[in-house]
């Protein structure tokens, strides 16, 4: 094989028959899908039959390491998971920083395809060519820290473990997958593992990874090392983590969703701002595999009622979801709720937004203290939020109503609750109030996995005003947003396929990627060729979703965004009107070459060589 860097193999494991098979792929496959998200999406696109139950044995769980995984490229160790999502019924991927992607490649595979369903609780053990489905009876019911500890004691400290918590076992549609205290959180992929009776994936790889040009690669790595070290974001992220711009987004931009999007400036923000808490609680820096600009923080609570809490966090998104969105200004309580989410295996964004939603319902009298069992109120947030997380993860009491996210909860509760459920396609939104960021609002709709800040990453261009090839971007305008969002979506698909962290996207714009890819694989790409791959990946997801009946009618923004203007702060009065929404969607469909219903056309699919 001409290409280097890749292992050239995809491992398929059928949990029903316990049979496995490694199939080779060629250079053409690599050139078409690149790796990481591209490989994972291809596997799900071709592997999941139409109408398959996301929580049934026909669903496929794919996992793939990016092109850079295992190689010394700063922040280039991300792994992509993908499946048909139980939350959205769409093809959803979730990207994680845990070290299991690089380990998979050392074991000899670029991607893993898991099909079928194990008869009883099991875990998958992969040690190079040795593939076994093993009994996990003793692991069932254990949390995401106990599981790797037990497995490492059994198989040695060098194995890498990705696992689910109790929430995944109980098929919560907001369940996550955990590895090294990092999570593939979004769209309920943890429940897909749970539905397959798959508690954990354990990998040990001892093979060499050989780049095409080792010396050149080391030189490139060193060059970026220097660029990182000099960058302000390196210094800020390393000191304060990803919440570093929380103050700014509140005070300057006024788009920090608060109390279930009722407000967009959190008055008590200083209490959850890392500039305030980092010096007090952070005891060490943490990083993903291969990351040379660590944003991870070891957050430890040493005294008080939350004493003993120790997490890799608290990240910006979680400061919003379990903090501002729930009106929770007690940072120790946010940390505890974050820890419970991690241990039980639930996405912090979805869990927090769902709790904030229920809090608004109690505020409005739609649910009462009697329904919940305690005061799920803004003024009781510090106690109520962690308590509710615990109940959701275990599906206990009212926690069972909330365990599948806002869309399902609103339906179960009825009484007009839907009016306050903030989501698109069934996925709870991340920490940006898109009423004040129109393009980002479009991106929440077009994102193939539902409301997401990272499928297009359009918050960065809109908040900063420039990105990549554009300048003077006005966040209050709809002009050109359809085109720009489609382009940045393609960009992000490339990012997730090479395995780079999106916190590096300002450092390696697409034009910088070909030399790195070449040093590792020996394959040459132009910038346009890479973007074409990104377009292909996005179109495959779009075609899959259309096939499942998820079209434009299902993409629309929720009532809160369309009807209630932002009440105060720097973005006061802003919302996205139905007319603006439709204009942006029309523009987007044109830019994509899709029908106005959001369906990729046969011509487009042919142009992109998608079968």
């Amino acid at each position, binding site marked *: 094989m001409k290409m280097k860097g890749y292992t050239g193999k995809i491992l398929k494991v059928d949990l029903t028959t316990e049979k496995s098979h490694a199939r080779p792929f060629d250079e053409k496959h690599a050139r078409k899908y690149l790796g990481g998200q591209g490989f994972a999406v291809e596997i799900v696109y071709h592997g999941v039959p139409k109408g398959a139950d996301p929580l049934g044995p026909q669903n496929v769980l794919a996992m793939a390491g990016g092109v850079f995984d295992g190689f010394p490229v700063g922040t280039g160790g991300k792994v992509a998971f993908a499946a048909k999502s139980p939350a959205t019924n769409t093809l959803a991927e979730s990207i994680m920083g845990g070290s299991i992607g690089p380990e998979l490649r050392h074991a000899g595979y670029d991607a893993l395809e898991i099909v079928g369903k194990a008869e009883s609780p099991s875990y998958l053990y992969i040690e190079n060519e040795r593939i076994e489905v093993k009994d996990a009876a003793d692991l069932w019911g254990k949390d995401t820290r106990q599981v790797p500890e037990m497995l490492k004691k059994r198989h040695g400290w060098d194995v890498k473990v990705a696992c689910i918590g109790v929430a995944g076992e109980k098929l919560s549609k907001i369940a996550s997958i955990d590895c090294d205290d990092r999570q593939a959180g979004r769209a309920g992929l943890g429940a897909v593992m749970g539905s397959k009776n798959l508690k954990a994936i354990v990998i040990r790889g001892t093979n060499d990874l050989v780049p095409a040009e080792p010396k050149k690669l080391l030189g490139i790595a060193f060059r970026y090392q220097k660029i990182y070290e000099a960058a302000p974001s390196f210094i800020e992220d390393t000191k304060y983590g990803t919440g570093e711009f929380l103050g700014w987004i509140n005070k300057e931009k006024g788009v920090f969703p608060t109390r279930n999007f009722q407000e967009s400036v959190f008055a008590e923000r200083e209490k959850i701002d890392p500039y305030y808490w980092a010096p007090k609680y952070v005891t060490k820096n*943490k990083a993903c595999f291969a990351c040379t600009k660590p944003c991870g923080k070891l957050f430890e609570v040493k005294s008080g009622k939350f004493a003993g809490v120790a997490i890799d966090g608290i990240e910006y998104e979680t400061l919003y979801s379990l903090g501002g969105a729930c009106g929770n200004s007690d940072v120790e309580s946010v940390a505890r709720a974050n820890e419970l989410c991690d241990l039980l295996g639930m996405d912090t964004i979805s869990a927090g937004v769902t709790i904030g939603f229920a809090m608004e319902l109690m505020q409005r009298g739609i649910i009462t203290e009697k329904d919940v069992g305690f005061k799920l109120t803004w003024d009781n947030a510090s106690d109520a939020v962690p308590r509710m997380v615990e109940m959701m993860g275990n599906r206990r009491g009212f926690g069972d109503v909330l365990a599948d996210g806002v869309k399902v909860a609103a339906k179960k509760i009825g009484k007009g609750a839907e009016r306050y459920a903030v989501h698109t396609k069934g996925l709870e939104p991340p920490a940006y109030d898109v009423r004040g960021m129109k393009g980002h609002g479009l991106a929440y709709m077009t994102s193939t996995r539902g409301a997401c800040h990272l499928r297009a990453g359009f918050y960065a261009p809109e908040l900063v005003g420039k990105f990549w090839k554009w300048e003077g971007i006005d966040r209050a305008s709809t002009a050109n947003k359809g085109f720009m969002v489609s382009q940045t979506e393609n960009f992000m698909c490339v990012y997730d396929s090479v395995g780079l962290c999106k916190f590096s996207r300002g450092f390696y714009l697409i034009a910088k990627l070909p030399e790195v890819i070449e040093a590792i694989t020996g394959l040459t790409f132009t910038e346009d060729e890479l973007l074409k791959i990104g377009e292909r990946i996005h179109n495959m997801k779009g075609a899959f979703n259309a096939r499942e009946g998820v079209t434009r009618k299902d993409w629309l923004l929720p009532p809160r965004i369309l009807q209630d203007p932002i009440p105060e702060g720097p973005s006061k009065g802003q919302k996205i009107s139905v007319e603006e929404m439709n204009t942006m969607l029309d523009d987007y469909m044109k830019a994509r070459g899709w029908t106005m219903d959001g369906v990729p056309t046969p011509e487009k699919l042919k142009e992109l060589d998608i079968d």
Partner: protein
Amino acid sequence: MVKMLVPYPENCTGCRFCEMACTIYHDGKINHADARLQVHRRGVKVDFPSVCTHCVSCGEDCCVLHCPVEAIKKKDGMVYVDQEECTACGECVEVCPFGVMRMEEKAFNCDLCGGSPTCVKFCPMKAIVYEEPKPEQYEKVKKLLAVEE
């Protein structure tokens, strides 16, 4: 005073960049088991690099004393394996308290990259520093490694 690799576990993020840089520099390929230093992650609270270049680091238990054919030698205090004499018996790998004596066809260990340590160059957190030995830092690593057993 001679310079050595000094570990600062409190600074380490567990990124393992140093291991990758070490093997790619020496072998042109990546295999963490062949890195002349080892990074450990033991749960959310503990990440640390384990290094050893000179006898100062480990004191009594040094591989030099345990090698049955005296293939492990010292030059300016620095430990190296005489490739001619090494019989690949694995004794040194067994006794190395830092777990950094490696074995392929023959035993090998850190050579300080000829005086300009690659791992130090790439560690973003100054968790490995090339400086005069600090015995208390090696003690920290020994303690962390002991917990693991």
